[in-house]
């Protein structure tokens, strides 16, 4: 069997595929963050908590309302997105004129409160959430056993990422959004309701986080801290991709998933730090990020 640096080729393929799957989560989460930052100039530290809420809402739908995974995939983003809309209207919209730091403090505080409330109610051991029967089982590929559900995660996140990118880059709504980012006053003068646009954008970004949460529920432990662990990595992804760059966050999300996957084979101890090492290198060479515009 051919090997690369002592690792069999076949094992390597498997690891690359797994890296891609993790990259899917990074991509959806960082996409939501990038949209919110790009249009609202808010560093949304509540993102991890909203991802966690997505998973919890899926669990609640199943246990309180008897609605399964597919309903959750549709409803959880809507429910959590609405929560985001309320949050934006009540609190975040008051901070647009202030320094970034205030938005960061507010959203970070909110994240702690939300996590605390869920912890108080549901404990920290996590809640069970089964893989939907349509997607259980797996495929025996020549180089690994691929659970069907993991394959679905990659497909679903790719579709959502590309659709989002198309909406923002190719439609009229997207054009308004981009224009409002550049110069809100002028766009408002043309009769576009900018505050509404911002509210909906925030709601959509949050809904993306919740969507990722539902995708994660069957494979990761559904517990109140699940978002706190992943959000730091996702922030690094956004910084590497370039704050606010839509395409950057998608491409970087998947790429870093792959790099992390490779690290897990060659030097597992470093797999949680490799993304931050890359972040440091990128910031040194290209401070605006790989896809960022230099102001």
């Amino acid at each position: 069997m051919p090997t690369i640096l002592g690792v069999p080729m076949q094992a390597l393929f498997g690891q690359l595929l797994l890296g891609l799957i993790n990259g899917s989560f990074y991509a959806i989460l960082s996409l939501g963050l990038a949209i919110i930052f790009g249009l609202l100039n808010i560093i949304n530290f509540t993102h991890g908590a909203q991802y966690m809420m997505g998973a919890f809402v899926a669990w609640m739908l199943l246990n309180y309302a008897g609605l399964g995974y597919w309903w959750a995939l549709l409803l959880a983003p809507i429910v959590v997105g609405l929560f985001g809309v309320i949050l934006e209207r009540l609190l975040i919209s008051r901070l647009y004129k202030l320094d970034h730091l205030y938005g960061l403090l507010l959203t970070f505080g909110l994240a702690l409160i939300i996590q605390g409330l869920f912890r108080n109610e549901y404990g920290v051991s996590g809640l069970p959430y089964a893989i939907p029967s349509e997607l259980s089982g797996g495929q025996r590929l020549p180089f690994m056993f691929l659970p069907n559900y993991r394959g679905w995660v990659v497909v679903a996140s790719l579709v959502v990422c590309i659709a989002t990118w198309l909406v923002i880059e190719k439609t009229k709504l997207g054009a308004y959004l981009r224009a409002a980012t550049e110069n809100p006053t002028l766009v408002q003068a043309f009769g576009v309701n900018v505050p509404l646009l911002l509210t909906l954008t925030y709601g959509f970004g949050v809904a993306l986080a919740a969507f990722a949460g539902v995708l994660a529920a069957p494979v990761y432990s559904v517990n109140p801290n699940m978002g706190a662990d992943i959000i730091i990595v996702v922030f690094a992804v956004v910084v590497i991709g370039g704050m606010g760059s839509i395409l950057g966050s998608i491409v970087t999300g998947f790429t870093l998933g792959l790099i992390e996957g490779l690290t897990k084979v060659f030097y597992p101890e470093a797999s949680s730090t490799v993304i931050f090492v890359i972040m440091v290198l990128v910031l040194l060479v290209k401070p605006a990020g790989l896809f960022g515009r230099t102001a």
Partner: protein
Amino acid sequence: MLKRLLLASALCAVACGQALAQTPVKIGVLNDRSGVYADISGEGSVAAARMAVEDFKAAEKGLKVEIVAADHQNKPDVGASIARAWYDRDGVDAIFDVPTSSVALAINQVTREKNKAFINSGAGTADLTGPQCSPNTVHWTYDTVALANGTGGAMVKRGGTTWFFLTADYAFGQALQRDTTEVVNKNGGKVIGAVKTPFPTADFSSFLLQAQGSGAKVIGLANAGGDTINAIKQAAEFGITEGGQAIAGLLIFSSDIHALTPKVAQGLVLTEPFYWDLNDGTRAFSDRFAKQAGGKKPTAVQAGVYASVLHYLKAVEALKSASDGSKVVAKMKEIPTDDPLFGKGNIRPDGRTIHDMYLFEVKKPAESKGPWDLYKTLATIPGNEAFRPLNQGNCPLVNKS
């Protein structure tokens, strides 16, 4: 001002007078109330301590017991400063529970310095009764050596002769891997590989794939809490157990299995010192506990807090004073232990409480009759075999003769 002073002294005359009549005992339950170990210890441990005080009928026996609780956030510095404040300012006589080995070792030091008593239930490190042992410390519930002995030994005897470890990359994980490797080798098994996983890790699929590729018969999980839950959940997803490999959880509590459900965790072999459904004593206690804890059954750590508070109060009653920690601990070692949860046993000179451990297997979904019907007992490991022999721990309190 004068009026307030008079009032204060009048109040003291009442309160202090009462205190003189009874022996005051102040117990501090220090554990994780918000992090990864909050479900195995947390508020449940405080409830268990309260139940022990009730069951001991402390007031009738001349003890005036007060319980305080705090969150150490799994940080040694936070834990140590709470302990100092409790001992110096608040008059706490003994600290109970303290999960997270690093915090436990810090409290061990502070307690010895202040000559109070430290009765640990939640932490795993066997160093508490090894090189770090102290005349002020008792380690009640379990330790890494007992877990490694139980699960490691049993798996090899069941034919799991080759091992691959997924080890959480910090002191606890490495100690657990080291202790288990020793047991595996001693029983004629062999460790063929290990991977150090960053702590914490959400996605274990890559490491599981490596374990799968190694062809080892047993995959040993030298981790705890959320890491273990994620690893087991994903092992089921990747068809590891269906492929004929067995998973050995080296530190798992019933609350973890409850969160995973038997569907995901079935067939898992593990060692615990306590399970709610062992006998009439444990069932009666667990039912009462569940009423106070929102339907949850007690974990081994919470059961350990109950039993150790009970035993501690026996010693204080005998001495009629809780103020000298080393005297109380010496008395605890003198009296044999006997309670409905851990049965009869004793506390060794190194501070180790000796009681039976149990080897459990997680039931199949068809066998499980309720959300808390989780284990079937494979074997009872007698206390004198379960723990590290007294002369091998390098505890300075033990005469090597």
